[in-house]
């Protein structure tokens, strides 16, 4: 009777298979991850492994000398989480050989993510691989598989629209500003209102390089507090009309029941800067900016519904790309598996114990 063949495997759970409460329980954050890595070293027959732990998934990729080694790993995982193996089996994601390769490629490309096409996951996969490398738990199979997954992720991002378009309101607003101003560094951003959504949008502008931010609120203390948090300046609310022309972008999110920016106010500002566009972002409900401001030349006005609609359209576009991306990745995983399969029979237990 011949020995069982080594197997490339993926074992874990993700947002597709496990609800949030269960994922919280299975999470391998901080010391728990280190302890689990120690557990893994003790699993006989485990030749290579890497652990990917994010808020939406816990996945262990590895090469086992035989299927029994995967079963031992699963038992160890359940023991670490003090979880009934039968309960884990109900939410378990387990794939072998080429499907496991395909899965990693899809994860790295972002099409398995909750927010399709997001890029953060690629960084997390890279971190997981780097950690495994540092621990010396990768070998010829996982090295090749992870490196190829990074290339595949880059390829599909370049050749499809999977990562195009922002999908959060704040990021959509920043993208629109880029379409108007090209470079955000010289842009001066005025944040009207010290609420949460205004703060998020201001932070999004800042993270994309916007030059100077000023906060104005009816309550000057609130404006000052937010200004300090954003390393910005504070402006008394009553000075907004006269100072409006000094800004390129105005983000409005006050609780005022009436528009705080009227057409007359915007027109007066534009007379002082006729050749410079002015971008109004109205994130308030009820609206803070009179709708007829949009009729002024060189003035662009987007409200919450406009931004949400664009974000939805972008997400729909990304979802429409997933089939094409999956096909591209299937071709790549097939080619990769042809390369990996012979390496699986290298046989030696490669992990230092």
């Amino acid at each position: 009777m011949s020995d069982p063949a080594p197997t490339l495997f993926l074992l874990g759970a993700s947002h597709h298979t496990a609800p949030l409460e269960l994922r919280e329980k299975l999470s391998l954050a901080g010391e728990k991850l280190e302890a689990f890595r120690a557990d893994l070293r003790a699993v006989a027959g485990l030749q290579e492994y890497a652990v990917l732990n994010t808020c939406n998934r816990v996945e262990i990729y590895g090469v086992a000398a035989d299927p029994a080694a995967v079963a031992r790993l699963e038992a160890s995982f359940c023991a670490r989480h003090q979880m009934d193996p039968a309960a884990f089996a109900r939410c378990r994601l387990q794939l072998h050989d080429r499907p496991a390769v395909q899965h990693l490629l899809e994860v790295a490309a972002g099409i398995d993510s909750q927010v399709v096409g997001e890029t953060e996951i690629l960084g997390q996969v890279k971190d997981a691989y780097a950690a495994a490398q540092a621990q010396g738990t990768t070998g010829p199979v996982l090295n090749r598989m992870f490196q190829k997954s990074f290339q595949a992720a880059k390829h599909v991002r370049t050749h499809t629209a999977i990562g195009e378009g922002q999908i959060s309101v704040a990021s959509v607003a920043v993208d629109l500003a880029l379409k108007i101003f090209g470079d955000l560094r010289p842009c001066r951003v005025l944040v009207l209102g010290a609420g949460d959504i205004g703060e998020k949008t201001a932070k999004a502008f800042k993270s994309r390089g916007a030059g100077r931010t000023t906060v104005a609120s009816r309550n000057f203390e609130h404006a000052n507090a937010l200004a300090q948090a954003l390393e910005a300046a504070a402006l008394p609310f009553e000075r907004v009309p006269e100072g409006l022309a000094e800004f390129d972008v105005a983000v409005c999110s006050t609780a005022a029941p009436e528009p705080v920016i009227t057409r007359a106010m915007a027109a007066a500002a534009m007379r002082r800067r006729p050749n410079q566009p002015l971008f109004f972002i109205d994130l308030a409900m009820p609206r803070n900016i009179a709708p007829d401001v949009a009729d002024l030349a060189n003035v662009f006005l987007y409200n919450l519904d406009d931004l949400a609609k664009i974000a939805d359209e972008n997400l729909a576009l990304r979802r429409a790309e997933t089939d094409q991306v999956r096909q591209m990745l299937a071709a790549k995983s097939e080619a990769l598996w042809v390369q990996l399969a012979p390496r699986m029979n290298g046989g030696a237990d490669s992990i230092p114990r």
Partner: protein
Amino acid sequence: MSFLGFGDRAWYWMAAVCYLAGLVLGTVALLRDRRQSQGAIYAIIAAGFVLQTLGLFLRGRAMQSCPVGNMFEIFQFTAWSAICLYLVVGATFRLSLLGFFTSCLSAVLSLVSLTQPSWDAPHPVAAFGGHAWIAFHAALALFSYGVFGLLALTSAMYLLQTYSLKHKHLHGLFSFLPSILDLDLISVRLLAVGVLLMTWSLGIGSIHWLQDLASVDTPKLFTAALWLAYFAALVLRLSRRLVSQRLAWVCVVLFAVALLSLGPVNASRHPGAPTSAVPGLKT
């Protein structure tokens, strides 16, 4: 006169095919692949430019002057000028979609002129009477047409981008357009360069006209009026009185008027003659 067995028109055709290929490639990339192929388009347009330069060179050698003696040559020279400018501007500013639009303009100008045999009617050899300065004046005047052609393109792109942002149509072609401020910046520079070249051209021409005031005919007056219009647009823009969409519309309309009136203006100078020369030229 030929090169490698091909006459000047054959080289013009090859150039036109290159410009058309740039247009087709750009359209396919945008519509099917939803991406741009700036590098490929730039290379194809550059190849077309080389071929067209060869055609102009052969025609110029045969005519013993700058080849701007009839309507066909004027259109070819204008397309060549626009491409020449694009190769500099496109490489320097890397304005998204500018190559696509330039290949579109040049393909149209080249193909329209090539498919109108009557526009390429024979004209006298050494059309400028051996006056190098007049030939230079003609070349400068047409080069400024090329600059204004490119300006019309960036202005059209500005209008499209403004429409896209105002009406919230942000996908498809619109998603690749450069920013409003980038387009405004390049448009103002092109306007200034065009006015400068045309001023230079008219300055050279006026030296000859002043010696013979009777020679100031409709084409010359039209050219002067066109220069005045562009000059006024530049002054108004610099003083911030003609900005954004209104400036863009003015630039598009002025170039359309300039291009569409080439025929009638020249016909008025040569009644009954199918051939024509550059407006304002003393031929």
